[in-house]
């Protein structure tokens, strides 16, 4: 969208720098607070949280039942929660059902379990098309859904945030929770990959 040379700063960058400088000078905020917020979402809150939730659900049927009944509470059991996760609903993929999540109106996303949304989730293409031609969009992620699998699209644009619980791999019960968590990607939990 920008014609600036690759090494020129983004105009918004200059403006944000000015805003931060002014807020700091006037004693409104301190920069370490901003640093800490960035660090939280760069290093502490991301898809690994969601992956641990999924792995636990794969090996613990009681946890799985609680997770599907009350996503917020069950995710909280593992210590996850907070902003943009105040009311979590977990969507269960089965052999017969596949779920996928989008936000057409902005980019609502379950931060506590997935971190901040990826670029493509925020794109106009994803937002406009996932509700109208989900199978075509899934194909762009390399996901071909058999015709007889029921596709459920969730436009999460109000207060509930959605997390997809992917199908467990064969033999999940025999594997460790850590090992299983390593198999779960962000894309599984959004539903663009099955």
């Amino acid at each position, binding site marked *: 969208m920008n014609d600036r040379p690759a090494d020129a700063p983004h105009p918004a960058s200059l403006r944000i720098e000015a805003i931060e400088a002014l807020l700091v000078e006037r004693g409104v905020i301190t920069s370490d607070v901003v640093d800490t917020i960035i660090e939280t979402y760069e290093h502490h*809150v991301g898809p690994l949280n969601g992956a641990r939730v999924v792995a636990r659900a794969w090996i613990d049927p009681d946890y799985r039942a609680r997770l599907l009944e009350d996503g917020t509470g069950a995710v909280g059991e593992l210590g996850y929660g907070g*902003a943009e996760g105040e009311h979590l609903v977990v969507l269960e993929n089965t052999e017969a059902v596949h779920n996928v999540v989008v936000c057409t109106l902005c980019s609502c996303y379950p931060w506590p379990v997935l971190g901040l949304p990826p670029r493509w989730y925020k794109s106009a293409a994803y937002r406009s098309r996932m509700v109208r031609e989900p199978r075509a969009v899934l194909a762009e992620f390399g996901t071909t859904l058999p015709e007889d699998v029921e596709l459920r699209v969730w436009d999460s644009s109000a*207060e509930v945030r959605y997390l997809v619980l992917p199908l467990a791999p064969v033999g999940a019960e025999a594997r460790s929770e850590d090992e299983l968590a390593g198999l779960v990607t962000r894309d599984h939990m959004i539903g663009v990959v099955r």
Partner: protein
Amino acid sequence: MEGVHDMGGMHGFGAVPVDDVQLPFDEPWEGRTFGLFIAAGAAGARSGSIRPGIEAIAPADYLAMGYFERWARSLEAGLVDAGTLTVADIDTRVRTPRPPGRHAQDTNPKMAAGLAAALINHPRRPSGEDVPARFDVGDRVTVKRMAPEGHHRCPRYVRGVTGTVIRQPGGWPHASGDGPPEAVYTVRFEMGDLWGEDAEAGFLHLDLWERYLA
């Protein structure tokens, strides 16, 4: 409002720009924007919330901007609206950049830690409140025709369409911020009812406040 942010169903935006980037910010200023938005909110230095501020961006600009550019615009509008900064303050500072002066070395570890903790503080219970609900799970509901000027969360593509209530997650104040908690329903629509005879098979689910439904 009925704005260009309401993109569901539109053509013209091309293929999804799929990538495997896992970091949340492409450039440092995007992270600063995000952090400043939250910090300024916690400091009571900005008014408004993120979405209405973003929807107020002129349509051509909205479409041309990236995600965090919209956040930056919404942050600026909120700071100006709250009287914390003026547009002239910012313009002047952009034209004559210099490092922050007074307080530049200040830190506030207590606020930083408190805010970080608050951001990831898991609630005791889901946020939806127990409120009276006109519709029950299983009811057929039709989305009203409307064209509200204020902030709302009822996409155009479901207007006039009938679906089935599959869950009643609770009540929240309406997106416009007014009034007490109001029942929200998760409504399931058949794709064919939304997009016509050429639609893909499947279902679309949307959380809708009671005021949108008949």
